[in-house]
């Protein structure tokens, strides 16, 4: 089974690159959703079945795969924007950077010893790569939506790592984390709406009133 898990993790990393490459917001939202679903499936592949596990799977898929994409999609719809125009750093270069970061994350994973049962899994590099991808999106994109997406990708990356410890993690904590994430995204959605209303655009590069001269 774990082989399949690895393939899924590779898929996750590919999705990262895709997201770095695309400019269409709706598309990247869908991509995040897919990532979320994959995250939902993964624990079932590496852990024996349990009620706890089922709960987690359901929760993750529900939250990351359905609710959150819906919330953001809503925001996009309200803000009536299609694509991310001229990011701070171009797509090709971000793509390259993404590739570099993925490589780096493998190096990082090498440095840190894994538990024997995780030795041959790609969890660590995948999670780090995803994290860095999220960071890349956060720092290079202009649109508020894209930044939310970046944040989500980061979260996904963290979850990927979290999957190593699913049974270690008490339900309460995971549920709480998910819930917080949900509420966070929800609030961000609202804020984005307000932004688009205030500035008639969600181009965050315009949010520069607050600074020191």
């Amino acid at each position, binding site marked *: 089974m774990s082989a399949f898990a690895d393939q899924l993790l590779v898929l996750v990393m590919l999705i990262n690159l895709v997201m770095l490459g695309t400019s269409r917001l709706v598309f990247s939202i869908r991509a995040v959703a897919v990532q979320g679903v994959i995250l939902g499936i993964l624990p079932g592949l590496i852990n024996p079945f349990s009620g706890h596990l089922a709960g987690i799977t359901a929760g993750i898929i529900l939250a990351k795969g359905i609710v959150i994409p819906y919330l953001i999609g809503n925001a996009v719809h309200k803000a009536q924007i299609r694509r991310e125009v001229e990011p*701070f750093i171009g797509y090709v270069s971000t793509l390259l950077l993404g590739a570099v970061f993925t490589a780096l994350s493998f190096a990082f994973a090498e*440095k840190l010893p894994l538990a024997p049962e995780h030795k041959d899994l790609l969890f660590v590099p995948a999670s780090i790569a995803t994290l860095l991808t999220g960071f890349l999106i956060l*720092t290079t*994109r202009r649109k508020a939506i894209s930044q939310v997406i970046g944040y989500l990708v980061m979260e996904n990356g963290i979850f990927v790592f979290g999957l190593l410890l699913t049974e270690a993690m008490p339900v309460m904590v995971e549920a709480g984390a998910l819930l917080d994430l949900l509420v966070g995204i929800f609030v961000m959605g609202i804020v984005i709406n307000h932004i688009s209303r205030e500035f008639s655009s969600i181009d*965050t590069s315009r*949010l*520069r009133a607050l*600074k*020191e*001269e």
Partner: protein
Amino acid sequence: MFFFLEPTAYLLTAATILAASGVPGLLLRAPLFGQRIAAFAVVIASLLGEIAVIQLLGGSPAAFYQVDWPLPFGPALFSTDHLSTIFLFPLFLVTGCVSVYSLAYWPASEQSSAGKLTFFLGLFAAAMVLVVVARNGVLFLMAWEVMALSAYFLLTTEQQSSAVQRVGTVYLLATHTGTMALFVMFSLLRSTTGTFAFPASHALAQTLPYATLIIVTALVGFGGKAGLMPLHFWLPGAHANAPSHVSAMMSGLMLKMGVYGILRTLSFFVALPVWVGWVILLLGAWSAVNGIALATGQRDLKRLLACSSIENIGIIFIGIGLALVGIQAHAPYLVVCGLSGAFIHIVNHGLFKSLLFLGSGALIHGAGTREIDRMGGLARRMPITSTLFLVGSLAICGLPPLNGFVGELFLYVGSITDGITAPLPLAALVAPVLALVGGLAVITFVKLYGIIFLGTPRSAAAAHSHEASGFMNGPMILLAICCLAAGMSPQLLVRLVTPVVGFYGDVAGDLFTQASSQVPLLPLTFVNILLVILTLIIGAVYLVRLRGSSQPRSTTWGCGYLEPTPRMQYTGTSFSELVVNLLGTIVAPRRERPVMTGVILPRKAAFHYAVTETVLDRVLSPIFHWIGLGFSYLRKLQHGQLHIYMLYIFATLFVLMIWTH
């Protein structure tokens, strides 16, 4: 023993009363009543304090109080000794006088700020008492900072005016920075002794790791408060813009707290590095000369007095320096005379400087201005004030038969004696310096007294000035009498300082008497009396002669010019111009010469003249400007771009990762 309490207890009670004295004024509906209560309380407290001083001079031992407060700095310790006494005597005397004076000078019936002022005045005095009796570093720091802050609130009483605001800010920044130096000092002391409690005197070896650092930080922190050059820049403005009775306390008492701090710190060490004495001596000499030079050029009555405070502090430090040098070179005369001179001058300056500041308050009250050149002829309308002011001026010039002379006499004798006998010829060079300072002081105060009180009024306000009320004159008279008494019989002063000199310079009593026998005290008294008698006789003869003869009145001889107007009189500025030109490098006057226009008849032209505040205007302001410029570049880091902020976060993460691998 007919005293009910022992000294420290008296002092602590006095401090408590002082601190609480202003509270009724804040709470009561009738502010004037509150102010009266406060004045009464302060007088009572001062009396208690003086009782304690008398006890201590009488040699009765002071108790050591230990309060286990819940702060992590060890127990709070209070005690007092001879070193404290010498500062406490003028402290209580002046405080009492000021509180009575303020009833008339800053009456709550007219001044809405009186309540606040009275409160902080009490707090100020109490804090100073605590500073002197504190025996724990942090307790000392707290008292110190409370003193500094209440002084700030006192001097910004008229906070509406921008000038007051400015000098207040400068003062606050200066004193806070100084306090930081003290933070370091007491921390180092703590790390050497292992406790915040003051070490016993002469308990620390000079070879301790941080000895030098401790002394330097003490010189910076305390010297700044004392107004030692070049840390004096806050002083003239602050003293000039505070209400006069506040200036009296700040100049007469607060500056001395800086001196106390240094003396206390130095007393911890059994022996001091050689350079300390010389450094202090040089700083003192520098302050004395520059201070009086600055004073000469001033046009603002209170600024002038403030600058002369710098001079007097300088003289005090000269004394201390001489003593330290003497200790190093085992020159007992130098030690005894230097210390005696310093301590006597500490007391004297407290007396006559307060007298002069209170007098300037009376002047401002009467003539409504601080500009020397707008006054004149006030002696006719303010006879009492003018007389008292004359006493103060003579005293501050160090002229016999007043008290100012005594302290300087000790310094002269000390320096010359060891200059001519002991291996310290260089010490003798102090005498000419003092002589120069004395000469400049005469210029300054002749100008001050002559231009303000004599001649004819230069402004309408001066012409309609009025004598101050009894509440204001009473305290001044008391101070003047003290000056006169101390001057006529210097033994009083010597008796005052004998114990502290013995305690501080740890010189045996017989040696003290032997050394101070060099100083002609009895002859001085004799000469003083002779001087007075002679003056009276000649005066009497002269007056009798005048009675007999005709004495017609006329205008002043104008050298043929028959219509002299007040504006034709010599002004203070023109009086001091000659010497200011000689001292140009120190005083650095700023002139704007008039440009004469007009073909036949010259048109109106303006002439501006001001004495610059050298350190502040030419050193600090530029530095601040450049630093501010540098900061404004750094401030670009907060540029408002979210994605770069993100970058900061990850950069930090990255750096930490790299740094540790």
